[in-house]
């Protein structure tokens, strides 16, 4: 019932303001992406999996009705060493479901389920848009990745993307993935993002987020900075964060902290060399995680990428251990 109410709240302004142009085909857009992963981590079975098959539909009807929905099938195992071919599992989730109300050019209210702006990687996490098969721990582990509630955005400068955002999740996440795929579920979440620049060549942002963990006496306060720089001869990106953990569970440290730095350099034949280093200290583990990743990406078109990477992990291993990883990602 509460899910139905959330959807209704998102759509209500739309139906009251929608005009006769509501069903014009050119106002609706259908697209999606898929990611096929080959992974051979040390001491684990080699496997091929379709990790994401995502479809999104958006529309721009008027100032009051700009809906967006992303539905996703994920964790679809196709083949595993010792078990052979398999086509018998798939999980489904609603990744995003929101409506944007544009009060004017500078001020937008978003209602529904959306991605939290704590990291640029989180906002643009689709496989064809990122350089590696594996995602850095800092971009996902410590904070609420999804918000089900509202977001208010104010633009200071439309061209540079200088903006301020405030968001609030009053209750809990709508259609949350199970904790095998998500590190924890959250109840109340409050946050703000100060985006200094977000244009075709650069992105810089500071973030703060407070989140209550569901079914646990734990709250987490995250401070984060992330940046992206695009130049003719390289892409550079980085994120560093600290999350203060207040919990009744056993902790080795008072906070999670860490970050990563990544370079992508184009070489001939539509190839790119990727290199990344990440350091991450978990509050509940004694030893920090250090990860070095190097790889090659073949991107003949901007909508298609083939990735091959080697990841070496030391210390506390999270979900992505040492090994060889490859993937094909297509945006359609």
């Amino acid at each position, binding site marked *: 019932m509460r899910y139905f109410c959330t959807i209704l709240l998102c759509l209500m302004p739309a139906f009251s303001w929608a005009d006769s142009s509501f069903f014009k085909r050119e106002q609706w857009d259908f697209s999606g992406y898929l990611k096929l992963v080959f992974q051979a981590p040390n001491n684990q079975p080699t496997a091929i999996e379709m990790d994401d098959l995502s479809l999104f539909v958006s529309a721009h009807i008027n100032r009051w009705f700009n809906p967006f929905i992303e539905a996703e099938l994920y964790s679809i195992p196709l083949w595993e060493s010792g078990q052979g071919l398999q086509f018998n599992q798939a999980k489904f989730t609603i990744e995003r479901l929101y409506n944007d109300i544009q009060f004017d050019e500078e001020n937008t209210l978003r209602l529904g389920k959306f991605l939290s702006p704590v990291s640029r990687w989180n906002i643009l996490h689709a496989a064809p848009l990122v350089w590696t098969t594996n995602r850095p721990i800092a971009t996902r582990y410590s904070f609420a990745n999804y918000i089900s509630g509202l977001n208010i955005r104010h*633009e200071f400068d439309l061209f540079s993307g200088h903006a301020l955002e405030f968001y609030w999740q009053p209750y809990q996440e709508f259609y949350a993935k199970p904790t095998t795929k998500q590190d924890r579920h959250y109840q109340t979440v409050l946050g703000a993002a100060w985006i200094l620049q977000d244009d075709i060549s650069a992105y810089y942002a500071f973030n703060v987020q407070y989140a209550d963990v569901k079914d646990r006496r734990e709250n987490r306060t995250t401070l984060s900075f992330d940046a992206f720089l695009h130049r003719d001869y390289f892409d550079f990106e980085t994120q560093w964060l600290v999350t203060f953990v207040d919990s009744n569970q056993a902790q080795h440290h008072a906070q999670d902290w860490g970050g990563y730095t990544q370079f992508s350099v184009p070489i001939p034949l539509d190839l790119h060399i990727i290199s990344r280093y990440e350091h991450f200290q978990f509050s509940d583990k004694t030893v920090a995680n250090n990860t070095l990743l190097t790889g090659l990406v073949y991107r003949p078109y901007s909508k298609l990428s083939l990735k091959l990477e080697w990841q070496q992990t030391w210390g506390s291993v999270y979900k992505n251990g040492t090994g060889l990883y490859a993937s094909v990602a297509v945006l359609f």
Partner: protein
Amino acid sequence: MKLKYLLLCFIFNFLAPVTCWADIYIITHAETKVPSISRKELAAIYLLKKNYWPDDSPIVPLNLPAQNALREQFSLDIFKRSTREMGEYWNKMSFKGVKPPITQASEQAALLFIQRVPNTIAYVGDKPPENKQVKILLQLKN
């Protein structure tokens, strides 16, 4: 002596740029209540960051096909990015639910569209005659 000049002309011919860029004219429907725009505003319009004219009517930017030479010139001039590099930007925007500006097959088609539909904006290589249907907002000199 003549042979020397011929040789110099021959070498110069090879060194001269292959393409010669012309000016680009940013045009809109004559009824659009804006006398001119800046390069920054133009960029914001074509990145779909600025979506409304000052009188609150929606802006409809028109693009040319990805292979079009004038589009490449426009893209390099305004964004300092090739059409292909801009494709990556539009992929990211597509993930955020924003689709790129609509495309017209040729400059003539864009001009016809401008003449018929208010609030549209486009770019053309040849200076159009300013009349009751079309006006020039900006000239990008090269």
